[in-house]
């Protein structure tokens, strides 16, 4: 993963094992919750927990491949980019993730 810009800092959120495979956990934050996803091959991705369609909680969707399907109206969101898959158009904000020794770190912007 890229090193965060100097205005961001790495925060430890949980271990990889805390997230179910093909599932997610929610990181609560006043500035908007973040959904942290784990794929079948143990890659971890983080997106703002707000679907670009009508703000559905992406964390509650079904994860498959590197995609999550929003639980409200089934948009498919690419976990690597946050982009909605065609034909839908929109983007959920993506957060850089680093996994070290089984620990998951998120890069969050400092003020």
């Amino acid at each position, binding site marked *: 993963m890229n090193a965060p810009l100097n205005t961001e*800092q790495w*925060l430890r*959120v*949980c271990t990889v094992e*805390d*997230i*179910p*495979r*093909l*599932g997610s*956990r*929610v*990181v*609560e*934050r*006043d*500035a908007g*919750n973040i959904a*942290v996803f784990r794929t*079948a091959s143990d890659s971890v991705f983080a997106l703002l927990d707000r679907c670009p369609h*009508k703000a*559905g*909680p992406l964390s*509650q*969707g*079904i*994860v*498959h*491949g590197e*995609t999550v*399907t929003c*639980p*409200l*109206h*089934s948009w*498919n969101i690419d976990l690597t980019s946050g982009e909605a898959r065609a*034909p839908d158009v929109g983007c959920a904000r993506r957060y850089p993730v680093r996994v070290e020794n089984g620990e998951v770190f998120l890069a*969050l*912007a*400092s*003020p």
Partner: protein
Amino acid sequence: MKKPKLVVVGNGMAGIRTVEELLTLAPDLYEITVFGAEPHPNYNRILLSPVLAGEQEFKDIVLNPLSWYAENGIRLHLGKSVARIDRHRRTVVANDGTEEPYDRLLLATGSMPFILPVPGKDLKGVISYRDIYDTETMIATAKAKKHAVVIGGGLLGLEAANGLKIRGMDVTVVHLGEWLLDKQLDVTAGQLLQTSLEERGLSFLLQKQTAELVGNDAGEVTAVRFKDGDEVAADLVVMAVGIRPNTALAESAGLHCNRGIVVSDALQTFDPRIYAVGECVSHRGVAYGLVAPLFEQAKVCANHLAQLGIGQYKGSVLSTKLKVTGIDLFSAGDFMGGEGTEDIVLSDPAGGVYKKLVIKDDQLVGACLYGDTADGAWYFKLLREGRKIADLRDHIMFGESAIGDAGVQGQSRAGAMQDSDEVCGCNGVCKGTIVKAIKEKGLFTVDDVKKHTKAASSCGSCTGLVEQILMNTLGSSFQETPKTKAVCGCTDHNHGEVRKAIREHHLTSHKAVYDFLEWRTPNGCATCRPAVNYYLISTWPKEAVDDPQSRFVNERVHANIQKDGTFSVIPQMKGGVTNSSELRRIADVADKYHVPMVKVTGGQRIDLLGVKKEDLVSVWKDLGMQSGHAYGKSIRTVKTCVGSEFCRFGTQNSTQMGIDLETMLANMWSPHKVKLAVSGCPRNCAESGIKDVGVIAVDSGWELYVGGNGGIKTEVAQFLCKVKTGDEVKEYTGAFLQLYREEAYYLDRTVHYIARVGLDYIKQKVVDDAANRKALYERLLYSLEGLPDPWAARIAGVQKNEYIPIRLVTAGEPA
């Protein structure tokens, strides 16, 4: 005790339908004997015309093969005509002397063709058109002779004429009226019909009265002579000038007849042991000559023969169609109009289309359609319902499509729609959007359209319409969606194939399925994973592992997600029965967790709406109640009425029956949601008629109905069978649901499943085959046995992380 004896005279459509209805209501009540004058088992008389036209063969139109009689223990006397009824000794005697005693007698002798009383009517080559014998005579004559004359331009006559023409004869139709089908069509439509039949090579002589049939020395007919002196050559004369109820037998037995055997609303004759149905009957002064009303009579009559005593026949409104391939006409009700009626008429003779609607007191009372009959069924429905039509009047002529009353199938509605008309109500997609997407993105299938526009991706009720739009837009390059579609884009296999592979190759995990069936994706997608998960756990209970990550959020979390991401919680309330302590706990929970809305659901329980996900487990704990499974493709509720415990009409304890069923089915997963209801009497306060399984108590037991649905498209449940005890209700219900669980495709409701396999198949597996029923029932109990209540399990710690968010407490996190 010996069974009472039921004797049926007349082995035709009405009599045998009554027997069939009776057998479903009360299979073992009677020892049944049937007399039939014809030497054939019951066949579909209606389809004689396609047989004559060479479109079908006799074997195709047999309704009840001889084996059916044997299987149902019915004694059949074929080729024996009953000559006498002895009402004192209660026996019938056939023309060959066969005698049978009866306790109940059913007369279903049909009608006799009316033969014009003209000289020469007994010549060779003069026949009527009533049975297979007549039909075969016509087919044989057509091979050898040239000239046919059909007397009578009604439905039967025209069908006969059309058939004879197709068989190569020169056919002249002689008709007394001013125009053809003068009982079914008005003059304009009648003339249109005549033109198009003339184009097929038929000749017509209207307003001609037959005076005499002329014969040769061999006694064969050679010509028809009319009152005005004209003559036409004829090697075959078919008389189709009407029918008369066949009442000779009844009259000779002293039963009251008046243009038909007179019957009550219970289809009972003046002798209470004797019932009558079919064309031989006169009910409230009307004798019917079409099968639809006869089948209604059969249903009611069977109900009384089965000693249920609740049916009433109140007469029928009729509609007609002519079965000549390629000619569409439809008429119903009072299509002629008269005093106090208004007509709306659309007439396009060049285009071969004519429609007339007759309106009286703001109701549709008649319809006559020629050329375009697509809306016949809709008009017929308006007519029967007697609906006020002021609001429809401007558009009614243009059919149902113009009203925007979108049904399930698109039919030819799509073409008539404006670009701004909404196609998909769920997703608010207009026709224009779909057409544009099809053209610009090169879409070919309904699936493409779903993906690109979301139309038809929710309830699916507009799928037919979308197919129509595709067809209209693409023309011939449209490919109909194959009946057996692939589950999703991850595979080419359809649901049936996936189910089969899981069963036959003992696949018990998602990975095994994806590997074995060579899925294109490593772990499926949001469409196929839930389906595969269901197939795995339903096929291999206690063996396959239920994968929560392959379940839609509601089933994973065991609560119903709302549009703001909160959840609704519905605790189980078996049979809709609760008590003060439960209500108090519900109230306390609502206060403690600031539940914004508390609502009574349609399934007779209480919904707490707006609960935060992280509060779910503590809410469940404080409630101390079990999950109502109100969120899953699973058993939902068993709705009940108060039944015999309190209601003055109740015949059985419907509430307890509902509670027992809900207890039995707790935690059951299924292809789609499953709802049940139990009513204490046929007043049916629990709405059993629109449930997957509806139970209605009657004096002598319980009636079971299946395949009802109150959802997107209302479907009335169909009668499955009647049982006596509560244990049987459980066994039959359980067996039916297990069959559905084992065989239906994911997301098919029971109604869809039954539509695919047919109700007869269900009856065969669940009603007729006792051993199979028991086996199904046991498999259901086996797969439900030991399943934990999901809420209790989660209170005990299962999938804990699911409900606990990670909180960021680090100082660096901005507010």
